[in-house]
C-alpha cells in the first residue's frame, strides 16, 4: 500500500504536506487503546530482541575459553561442608584461611590436583589426601610433620626466629603449636655451613643428618621422658653411622655433655638411664660429661 502511495506522491503532494508530523494525545478511548497496543507490541519486540541479545552474550561467555572445566555432571551444588582432619595441630579454621572463600563453587569447580600440590608446599604438611564427597562435601585429610628440635636463626631482615625441625630435616616456622610444646623441644646447635637458603628465597633447604638424630630423640621422648625433659641442646657431627667419628652431642640440665654414637640408640639410652639412677650420680647436681659412644664402655667425668 505504501508503494501505491509513493507512485501517487507527485499527484498528491499537495495534501501530503498537511499530514501531521507527530500524533497528538489520543482524543478517544479507542485511539488510546490503539496507541497502547502499538506501544505494547513495540515494547515486546524490543524486549524480545533484548532477551535474544542477552541470551547470545551469555552463551558466548559460557562457552568461551578453555580455562574453565566442562561441567560434565551438569549444574553443581555449591560446597556446603568441608571435612578437615589432621594428625597434628592445624585446624579447619587454618584451612579456611589458607584456602580462602568458597564463593559458591561446586565440587567440580575445584582443581583437586592443584589444591593438593599447594597444600604440600606448606612445610608443616607432610602428606595430604583431598577427595570429593558428592553432592556438597570437600574432604581434606593431612598428615603433619612433627617437630623434634627448635633451631633459632637470625637475619637482618626478619630478626631472630625459632624454626621447628622435623625428623626429616625440614625447617618450618610452624602454625598452631602451643607455646609450651615448643618450649619443651631441645634446641639444635648446628654448623651454620649446613644451613642453606632455598632457591626461591622462601625458607631453608632440609638439614642433612637430622634424620639420623631423629630416632634418638623419638626413643628418648617415648621411653625416657624424664631424661628427655632435661635435654636442652642437641648437636651432631657427621652422624653417618659408617663414619667412626660420627656422634651426637646433647647438653642437658644435669649433664653438660652427653655423647652418643649414631648406632644402637636403645642400648646407649639404657646405659644412660642406669647410670643416672646410680645414687652417686643422682646426688650430684651436675655431671661434666658422659660418653656412651664406645660400645659397651661408658666414660663419665663427674
Amino acid at each position, binding site marked *: *500500500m*505504501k508503494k*501505491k*502511495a509513493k*507512485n*501517487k506522491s*507527485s*499527484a*498528491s*503532494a*499537495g*495534501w501530503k*504536506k*498537511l*499530514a*501531521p508530523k507527530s*500524533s*497528538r494525545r*489520543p*482524543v*478517544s478511548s*479507542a*485511539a488510546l*487503546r*490503539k*496507541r497502547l*497496543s*502499538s506501544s505494547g507490541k513495540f515494547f515486546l519486540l524490543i524486549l524480545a530482541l533484548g532477551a535474544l541479545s542477552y541470551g547470545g552474550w551469555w552463551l558466548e561467555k559460557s562457552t568461551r575459553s578453555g580455562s574453565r572445566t566442562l561441567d560434565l555432571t551438569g549444574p553443581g551444588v555449591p560446597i556446603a561442608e568441608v571435612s578437615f582432619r589432621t594428625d597434628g595441630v592445624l585446624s579447619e579454621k587454618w584451612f579456611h584461611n589458607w584456602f580462602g572463600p568458597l564463593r559458591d563453587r561446586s565440587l567440580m569447580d575445584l582443581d583437586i590436583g592443584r589444591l593438593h600440590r599447594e597444600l604440600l608446599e606448606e612445610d608443616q604438611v607432610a602428606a595430604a589426601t583431598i577427595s570429593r564427597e558428592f553432592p556438597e562435601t570437600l574432604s581434606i585429610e593431612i598428615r603433619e610433620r612433627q617437630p623434634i628440635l627448635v633451631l633459632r636463626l637470625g637475619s637482618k631482615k626478619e630478626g631472630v626466629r625459632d624454626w621447628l625441625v622435623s625428623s626429616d630435616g625440614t625447617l618450618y616456622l610452624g602454625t598452631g603449636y602451643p607455646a609450651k610444646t615448643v618450649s619443651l623441644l631441645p634446641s639444635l646447635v648446628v654448623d651454620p655451613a649446613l644451613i642453606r637458603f632455598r632457591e626461591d628465597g622462601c625458607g631453608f633447604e632440609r638439614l642433612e643428618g637430622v634424620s639420623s638424630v631423629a630416632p634418638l630423640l623419638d626413643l628418648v621422648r617415648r621411653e625416657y621422658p624424664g631424661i628427655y625433659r632435661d635435654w636442652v641442646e642437641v648437636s651432631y657431627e657427621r652422624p653417618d653411622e659408617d663414619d667412626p667419628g660420627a656422634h651426637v652431642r646433647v647438653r642437658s640440665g644435669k649433664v653438660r655433655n652427653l655423647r652418643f654414637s649414631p648406632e644402637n640408640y636403645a642400648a646407649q639410652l639404657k646405659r644412660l638411664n642406669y647410670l643416672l639412677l646410680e645414687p652417686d650420680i643422682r646426688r650430684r647436681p651436675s655431671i661434666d660429661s658422659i660418653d656412651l659412644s664406645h660400645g659397651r664402655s661408658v666414660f663419665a667425668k663427674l
Partner: protein
Amino acid sequence: MSKIIGAVEIGTSKAKALVGEVTAEGGLSIVGMASRPNEGVRKGEIVDYRKAATAVHAALEEAEKMSGTTVDSVYLAQTGAHLRGQMLRGSASVSSSDNRVSVSDLERASEEAKRRQPETGRSYVHHVRTPIILDEKVVEDPVGMLGDKIDLGYWSIDGDDQAIRLALHVISNYSLEVADLILSSIASSTMMAGPDLRRAGTLVIDMGAGVTDLALYRQGYVAFTGVVPVGGDHVTGDLSMGLRILEPYAEKLKIEHGTASPRSSDDKEEVWIIGNKTIGDRSVPRKAISDVVHVRVVELFEIISKELGGLLDPDELKGGVLLTGGGSLLPGIEEIAAKVLGLPVRRASFPPGIAPELAQPENATVLGLLHYGLQDHGLPGRKAGESQTFMSKIAGLVGIGMN
C-alpha cells in the same frame, strides 16, 4: 501472502470504516466493516474535532476487531463544499528522434499540467487524469506510438487546508497513516458506474445526509466533480420546522412516509406524529409530508442542474444519471430528478460479488474507496507488469474496470 487495507468515510450522519483483504490471487474480500453515528460533521466538514474523532475511532476499532487484524494505513474520503475542481492541462513534444512516444514525454506533460499551484491556504486533494491526446487524437496508451505532441490533462480538486488537516488529524490520532485522499464522488462513482457506463457518459449523484456529491463522466474519463451542500438532513430539518416536530421524529417520518413525488392518495391519508411540548401529538395528512420533501428535492436537483449547466448534454451522457447514497432511497426521487435534469435517471446498483448486507446505497463511497485505491492510476508505461495483472484480476472479480 494477503494484504490488509482500510477505508474511512467521515460522513455527516455516520462515520464508516472498512477493512479489506487482498489475496495473492487478486481477490478482495471485506473482512470488517463498522459505522458509528457522527455528531462532529456538518455538510461534509468537521466542525467538532473531538466528536468526529470519537466516532471515526470507534468505527475503526470495531472494524479491526471484526476483521481480527489491524491496518496500518487507510484510504480517506474527502467531501465538503470547500472542494473545488478545475481542469489543468499540459503538453510536451515527443523528444525522441524517431518520434516514438516514451514515458518521459508523458511525465513532462504531466509535470507541466500540475505545475499550477492552488490559491494560498488551499492544497490539491486529488488529480484525476483525463484522456491523453496525441496529435489531436485521443489515445489510451501512446507509449511506443509515433507522434509529435502529447497533450495531457487532470481534473484537479483542491480544498481548504484547515478542513483537510482536520480530517488527516482524525486518522493520525488513531495511529494510522493516510495512504491517499480520494474524492467521495470519485469513490462512489467508481463503485456504482461500470466502465461501459463511464465510456457512454454518465452522471453519478451520491445523495448523502449533509452533502450531495457529483461526478460526471465522458468517454470514460472524469469531466466534472462537484459538491452541493444540500443533503438528506436538510429534508429532515424542513420537516422538523414545517411540522414542528423534533428532528429524530422528522427523520423517522421521512424514512417511513416521505416521498419525493406526492401521490394523489396522499390527501386522504393521515399520519400520526409526535409533536413537541407546545403542540403535542397530532396527525397530519401525508400530503403535508410529501410537499415538504418534494420542494427540497426539486431544489436540490435544480441546484445540480445549474451547477452542471451545459455539461448535462443528453448526447454526451448516453448512460444517463445514476442515483446512489442514502438519499436515493426516497420513493419517487428518480421521477423528480429526470424531470428537473432532463435525462433518464435510475438508482445505481452494485456490481456482482458484493455481499447483500454491504450492498446498501449508503455504503457506495466507503466501498468505492477500496476499489479505487487498489487501482493503478499512474501514467501508462509506468505500470509494473505484475501489478497490472494483479489489478486486472481485481477488476475482473468485482466487475470494475480501470480508467
